[in-house]
Each structure stands twice: as structure tokens, then as C-alpha cells.
């Protein structure tokens, strides 16, 4: 009886994840309307500015994923529950994917806007350094055979990595003052239509992220259970 309930619970989780992914997909499709038709074309940059609508949500949700890694790592150290570890691993993977997207689009943006593929922009540099840290985190997870030790070490690294974010950002900003500024800081004022579009994009990517995260989490959970069957 209890087992059946657990299964039912798992299934409802699965359908929730599915619903989130579908909703996210639909919302992303809808957001195309906002991006291409609703929002005006930017005067100086032209069509390329549309990258922004992918860049910003990816960067934000990537950072939020890293924050989830941080929280789940703390949770793991407190509770020692493998589920927390699986959540951290899933969030790190998705976060890495998103920050890759953010970096690629950011680089394209830089090329068009400032005529250089890479510039020491504090936000961009922070994103790159975080990318390195979390790539290292995932490599580490692969390379330690002892699972108990791997989880522990990964959790510690997951905490350290996020603690480092403000320092990385601060140092990147201070570093820039050495170099001549390649560009003036971006103007803050967005057209209202652009703002709506950004919000739509952030929300739809958020739905997709939540769904993906749940799927990946479930996958890792099942994978571990299957591996446990072998180990008995």
C-alpha cells in the first residue's frame, strides 16, 4: 500500500515535470512573438540585439541553478541524503549548460557591439570563471570512485564555489579599472515593450528549467537505484 503511494507520488512528479517542460516549450514559442514582433528593433545594434532575450534569461537561470547547487550541497552535508546530492548534480549540469549559452551569446554580442569577441566585462568574466568552477565540479564528480567520498567533496566544492561568486565579481570589476574601458556602461533604460519581452523570456525559460531539473533529478535518482541493485 505504502509502496503504491510512493509510486503514485513519483508518477505525479513525473507528470509535473512533463507539464512544466511542455508549458516552458509553449511559452518559449510564444516568446518568439514577443521577441520578433512585439519588441521594437534596437536603433544602433539592429537585429543582433535580439540575442539579449536569450542571453539574459540563460545567465539568470544559470546563476539560480548554481544557487540551487549551493543550497542542495548544504542540505546534503546536514542530512546526508543522496537525493540532495543528486539535486546538486542535476542543477550543476543545467547551470553549466545555461552559462555556456550565456557566454556564447555574450561573446557574439560583444563582437557586434564592441567589435571584440571577448572583453573584461565584470559580468562576462564572472560568468566565465563560474563556468570553469562548475565544469571542474562536474569533472570531479566523475573522477572519484568512492561514492560517499565523492558526494562529500562535491558538496564542499558546491558551497565554496558559490561563496566565491561575490569575490569573483568584485575582483573582476576592480581588474577592469586597470584597462581602458572598451565601452561605456550599458544604458539602463529599456523600452517598455522590450521589458515585457525580457520578462516573458525569463519566465518561459524558467518553466523549462524547472521541468528539466526535475527530469534530470529523477533520472539520476533512478540511475542510482539501478546501480544499487548491482551492488547488493
Amino acid at each position: 500500500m505504502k509502496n503504491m503511494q510512493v509510486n503514485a507520488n513519483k508518477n505525479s512528479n513525473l507528470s509535473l515535470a512533463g507539464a512544466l517542460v511542455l508549458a516552458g516549450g509553449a511559452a518559449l514559442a510564444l516568446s518568439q512573438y514577443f521577441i520578433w514582433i512585439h519588441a521594437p528593433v534596437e536603433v544602433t545594434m539592429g537585429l543582433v540585439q535580439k540575442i539579449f532575450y536569450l542571453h539574459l534569461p540563460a545567465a539568470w537561470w544559470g546563476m539560480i541553478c548554481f544557487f540551487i547547487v549551493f543550497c542542495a550541497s548544504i542540505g546534503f552535508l546536514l542530512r546526508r541524503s543522496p537525493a540532495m546530492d543528486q539535486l546538486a548534480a542535476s542543477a550543476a549540469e543545467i547551470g553549466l549548460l545555461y552559462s555556456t549559452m550565456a557566454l556564447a551569446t555574450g561573446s557574439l554580442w560583444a563582437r557586434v557591439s564592441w567589435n571584440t569577441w571577448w572583453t573584461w566585462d565584470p559580468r562576462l568574466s564572472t560568468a566565465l570563471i563560474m563556468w570553469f568552477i562548475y565544469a571542474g565540479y562536474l569533472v570531479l564528480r566523475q573522477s572519484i570512485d568512492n561514492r560517499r567520498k565523492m558526494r562529500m567533496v562535491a558538496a564542499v566544492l558546491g558551497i565554496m564555489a558559490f561563496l566565491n561568486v561575490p569575490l569573483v565579481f568584485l575582483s573582476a570589476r576592480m581588474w577592469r579599472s586597470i584597462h581602458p574601458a572598451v565601452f561605456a556602461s550599458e544604458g539602463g533604460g529599456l523600452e517598455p515593450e522590450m521589458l515585457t519581452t525580457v520578462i516573458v523570456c525569463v519566465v518561459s525559460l524558467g518553466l523549462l528549467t524547472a521541468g528539466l531539473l526535475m527530469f534530470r533529478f529523477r533520472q539520476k535518482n533512478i540511475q542510482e537505484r539501478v546501480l544499487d541493485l548491482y551492488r547488493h
Partner: protein
Amino acid sequence: MKCRPLALAAKDLRLVFADGAGIIQPVLLGLILVFVFSLSTPVGEEVPAQAAAAIFWLATSFAVILVFNTLYSLEGANQARIGLLLSPMPVQYIWMGKALSGLVLLLTAQIFFLPAIIVFLGQDLMVSWPGALGTILLIDWGLVAVGSLLGAMSQGHSARDSLLSVVVFPLLVPLLLAGISMGSFFLGEGTGGEPGSWLGLVLAFNALFTGAALVLFPFIYGEY
């Protein structure tokens, strides 16, 4: 020998210096890095102070990896790690002991790196020796705090130095940026921002990661 972290560090240093390899390897690697880097500029041209500072800290970073790998592998030979864990002392003492011995080894390596960048990279102007040494000491503190924490994970399995460096280097970025910036200041390129604000950043880094290490070290070293 009352203070146990000190006793631990003394034991480590005795073992490392008796064997030699544990200190010669990082020194050699660092010197090679500095020498190879000197090839990056045409003969007769000056290497910018900032580049010299960067290579100094790069050599130091590699030394951090090698030094802590050596230090923690000392406990692996006959599982002395378990003996230490069973000893009546906080696990953090082990972190402290390793950080201390790591600091001494790192400073030893830097004694060789410093003349090397002066000789090979033609840096002959030093604005303030006390300031420069103080800066080095301060940044080394942050390096060994992180190194001693994450170096502990390298013990007892096949994870190699390369894995440790992939994980540790990006974490050290704020510290390295500060080191390079302040280093170029002390090497005469006085324009390098304000050393004061970098100093604040280094202190914040050290405080944050010393605290984190004290809390997190038992998880890395004490279990499984």
C-alpha cells in the same frame, strides 16, 4: 611541542625536507615556467611588470597544488590519517597543521621564484620590499587556506594533481587577480589601481575561506 598543529607541521616539514622531492619538484616547475615565459618577448625587450607578476603567481599556484598533494600523501603511506582522526584533537588541527607546513614550503619555493623573475624577466625595480613581502604573505595565506582544504580530497585515491588544479585554480581567481595587480604595483608599474582596495579583497577572501575551511574540513577529511 605543546601546540599540536605546530607539531604536525614540524613533522611534515621534517619528512618533506628529508626526502627533498616534495620541495624540489614545485621549485623546479616554477623556475621552468618563469624561464619559458621569458621566451614570450623578443630578445632585448622588456617584460611588463604585470606579466612578471602574473607568471610569479602562476608558478606559485602550481606549487600550491604540488605541495598539498605531497603533504596529504604523507598521511597515506600507512593510513596515519586514521591515527590522526582518532587522536584526541579537533579535526581542524590537521587542516591547520597542513596549512602551516604548506605555507613554509610555499615561501621556500617563492624564495626561488622571486630572483628568477628578476633575472629572467628583467624586473629590477622594487617599490617597497616590506610591502611586497607583506602582500606575498597575505596572499599565500589565502592560497594555503584553500589548498589545505581541497588538497585533503586528493588523498587516498587516483585523483591526480591535474584534477586538483582544475578544481582549485578557478576558485583562486580573485586572489590571483589581486596578486597580479599588487605585484605589478610593487614591481614599479605604479599605476595598477589602488593596492588598498585589493588588500581589502584579499582580506575578505582569506577570512571567508579560512572560515569555510574550518567548517567544511571535517566533511572532506573526517568521513568515509
